[in-house]
Structure formats: C-alpha cells, structure tokens
C-alpha cells in the first residue's frame, strides 16, 4: 500500500548557505493495508518529515515513494488534491479552521470531495458521535479543550473514509487521560479497516499499543518490529 524506496530528504535552512540538514537518509519501508504503525524517535529524528513526504507536502531529494502503486513524487501540483483525499491527516496543532465550527470543519472535507448537503447532514453527526463530540458540533475551535480539538481533527480526517490516516504527534499537547482517549480512538479506527500511521515520541503511548513500531534516529531506521516497544 505504502512504500518508501531509498528516500533521502535534505533541508537547506538558509537560502545561500552551505549548511544542510539530512532529515531522512535512504529510508526504505513498506506498510500493508489495515496496519497500525507507530513511527518513533527523538525530536528531529525525521518522523514528521516522513509523514510530510507521504502527504506530498515535501518532495524527496532522492528515492521514490509509492501510495497505492502510484509514485507520489510524479504527481503534479494541481493533481495533489486527489492523493490527499485518500489520506486523512491529523496534526499535533490540530490545524482546524479557526473561523468554522466543528461541524463545518468536518463538513468541509466532504464538500471538497463533492458530497451533497444531504450526505453531509447524515454523515457528520455519525462521525461526531464516534469521536464523542456531538454536543460540541456548533462550537468554534477556540471554544474546545485540547483533547476535544484533537478529536475534532480526527473526525475530520475520518469523515471521507480515507484508506490511511496519518497522525503526527496527535497527543503531543494532551494530558495522559486525553492521550489514552485519542489512542483508543485511533485503534478503533484501525479496527474498522483503516491503515493508521502514528508518529509519536511518547513512550507510554507506544508501549500501550502493542503493534508495529519503526524507530528512527537521525534520519535512519534503526529498528522495525512487529508488536514493538519504545527502545530509545
């Protein structure tokens, strides 16, 4: 389903400088459908870069990335929307539209894929119920707690039934109770048949999941284990 083949990503932080930062170095990995994969490592290990490359937010310097057999690097800028509609993304800072209510935030993704009003009115409440935010449907993001905002972001990522959900440090700003809530939610989504890729540096989170863990260190894969644990 997802394949990274010798992918290298180098950042040049200064436009005219010679300084280069290697975020990922010759990364090769494969993720099968319906898998739950945790990507772990210290800050700067390359977890976020890996997800950004899959979402085509960044382009690799070397190597190829395949999603559903299609080379992501070959997709033209104006065609990226079709790739992103097959992926649900959840970010550490939630990235909810501040000027839209929770309902509107979720409905927006359905509007993007061309769903009608009737379909939106039917599906959004269902997803809100799954994430436990039915009562918060008409609230704006600034009126939500951190955990609620993250659940709203998961609901938005889930609404169009994507093949895969990418979650980049979704529990980074949450307390242990909300962290557990979010992880349970992601596991529930995975049980429903969606592939989940979770990037996190939270030891308790990784150890409680008991699924595949890929450990990164300075842009390289140092371990890839089924039912792995946090070892750094």
């Amino acid at each position: 389903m997802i394949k990274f083949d010798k992918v290298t990503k180098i950042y040049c932080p200064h436009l005219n400088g010679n300084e280069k930062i290697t975020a990922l170095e010759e990364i090769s990995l494969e993720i099968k459908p319906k898998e739950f994969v945790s990507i772990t490592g210290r800050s700067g290990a390359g977890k976020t870069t890996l997800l950004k490359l899959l979402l085509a937010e960044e382009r690799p310097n070397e190597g190829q990335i395949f999603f559903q057999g299609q080379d992501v690097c070959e997709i033209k800028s104006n065609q990226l929307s079709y790739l992103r509609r097959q992926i649900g993304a959840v970010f550490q800072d939630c990235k909810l539209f501040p000027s839209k209510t929770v309902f509107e935030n979720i409905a927006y993704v359905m509007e993007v894929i061309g769903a009608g009003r009737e379909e939106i009115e039917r599906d959004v409440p269902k997803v809100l119920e799954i994430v436990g935010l039915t009562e918060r449907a008409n609230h704006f993001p600034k009126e939500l707690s951190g955990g609620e905002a993250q659940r709203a972001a998961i609901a938005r990522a889930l609404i169009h039934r994507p093949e895969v959900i990418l979650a980049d440090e979704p529990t980074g700003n949450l307390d242990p109770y909300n962290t557990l809530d979010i992880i349970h939610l992601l596991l529930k989504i995975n049980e429903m048949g969606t592939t989940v890729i979770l990037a996190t540096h939270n030891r308790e989170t990784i150890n409680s999941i008991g699924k595949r863990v890929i450990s990164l260190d300075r842009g390289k894969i140092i371990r890839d284990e089924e039912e792995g644990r946090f070892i750094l």
Partner: protein
Amino acid sequence: MGWLGLVRDGGQIFATIFILAIAILLVSSLFLSGKVGQFLINSLESKADVSVYFKEAALEEDIAQVQDELAKIPEVKEIIYISKDQALEEFKKRYENNPVLMDSVKELGGNPFLASLRIQAKQAGQYKVITGFIDNLSIDDIIEKVDYSQRQNVIERIFSITSFLGKTGILFSSILVAIAILITFNTIKMAIYNFQEEVKIQRLVGASNWFIRGPFLAQGAIAGIISAFISLLVLFLIVLLFSPKIQIFLPDLNIFKMFWSNFGFIFLIQFATGIALGSISSLIAIRKYIKI
C-alpha cells in the same frame, strides 16, 4: 462562503471595500473629466473659424461658387454664408444696447458691412489647410480680406492646448489607475495573508486549487460590487453638489446632465472595474499560498 468570509473578516474587508471604492471612483472620475475636457475643447473649437469677406462688387453667384469649392475640402466641417443684410442685422442685434456703435452705423448711412463666408474646420489644427486652399483659388478680385491671420495665434494655441490635454490626460489617467490597482491588490493581498494558514489546511485536506480560489474570488467580486455602489453614490453626490457651482463659471457646461446622459456607461465602468479589480487581485494574491 464568499458572503460568510466577508462577514467574519469584517475589519479587513472594510478596508478593502474602502480602497476599492476610491479606485473605482478614480476610474469613473477620469471618464467623467475626460467627457468634460472634450466638451470644453469642442466648445473652444466651435468658437474658432475663418471668415472670408467679399468685396461690394462680388456677385452672390460668385460667392456661391467659392462656397461650393470650399465645401469640397475634407477638413471643412461647416460653411455659413452671411449676406450684407444678415451681417447688419447681427450687428444691430448684438449691439442694440450700445447707442454709440448704433449711431456710428447710422451716420455712415446704408449698409457698411460686407458679405462673408464663415468656415469651420473639423479640428483646430486644420485652418492652415483651408486658408492655403483659399490663397490658391486666385479670386483676389472678389475677396476683400481673410481674417484668419488675426485669429491665427488663438486657433493655434487652442490646438496645442487640445493636443497637450489629450496626451497628458492619457498619461495622468494611466498612472492614477495603475496606483489604484496596486493599492487594491496589496490591500486584498494583506486580507488573504491572514488566511494563509487556512489555505494551507485546505490544501492538506485535499481541496483543489479552484475549490480554494472560489470563495476568495467570490469575496473579491462581492467587495467590488459593494464598492461600485458606494462610489456611484459618492460620484452622484459630488456631481449634484458641484454642478450648479461650475455652471456659474461655465454656463454651457451642465455636469449633472452629462452624468445622467452617460449614466449607463458610468454604471458599467464602475461595476466592471469593481468586479475585475476585486476578483483579479484576489486571484493573483491567492496564487502564492496554494503552492503547497
């Protein structure tokens, strides 16, 4: 979403509408001032002419023949024949309240005026062609005088002013319109800058470029329409207020009437400028942020 965006982004959009209204007002004022300028030029040009005075002995048939010859010149707009009697009547009418002049004509006895042809050119710069043509007719035996030479300086001055106004008018208008477009574009760019994070999210959740552009385009067009209404109202009030004051100095110039007779075109200019400025500026401003 266009309307919703306008309502939620109240402060910034108010600034955009204000700048857009000024830009539209500027464009339509330029159009109206162009019309006023043209009116003044036409009015000045219509006052310029060449008069050919014929000797006492000249027969009406000879004058008619000269008139026919002159009518063949493409630069000639109008030729009016003024007989001796008509010239006397005109004089009496013009100076009926001036007893000194009236008495002097009486003392001379008879009709001291000469028959003449008053020739108007299509443009102020064409009188030289006409006088040149008259010189080449070789009819000195029936012509008393051609009084272009006395008015030559005035006519040439009008022509140079006309030409100068035309050239500088276009240059000045172009500069003002360019400034207005730049200010409008930057105001809208600033408004969209506040939405850059939202645009980034839109891209990441799979929105196509046109799906993102659409609301901004609609927002720009709506702002343009509102601005056009405002500037139309302001222009109407300016014309209503200043028209009587201008008429004190230039009685023939009725700007209010000119505004109404061109209302359809002004309306079209204002709305076309508003919608085009608003939507094109939005399109250009959003371009940078959708490259994610």
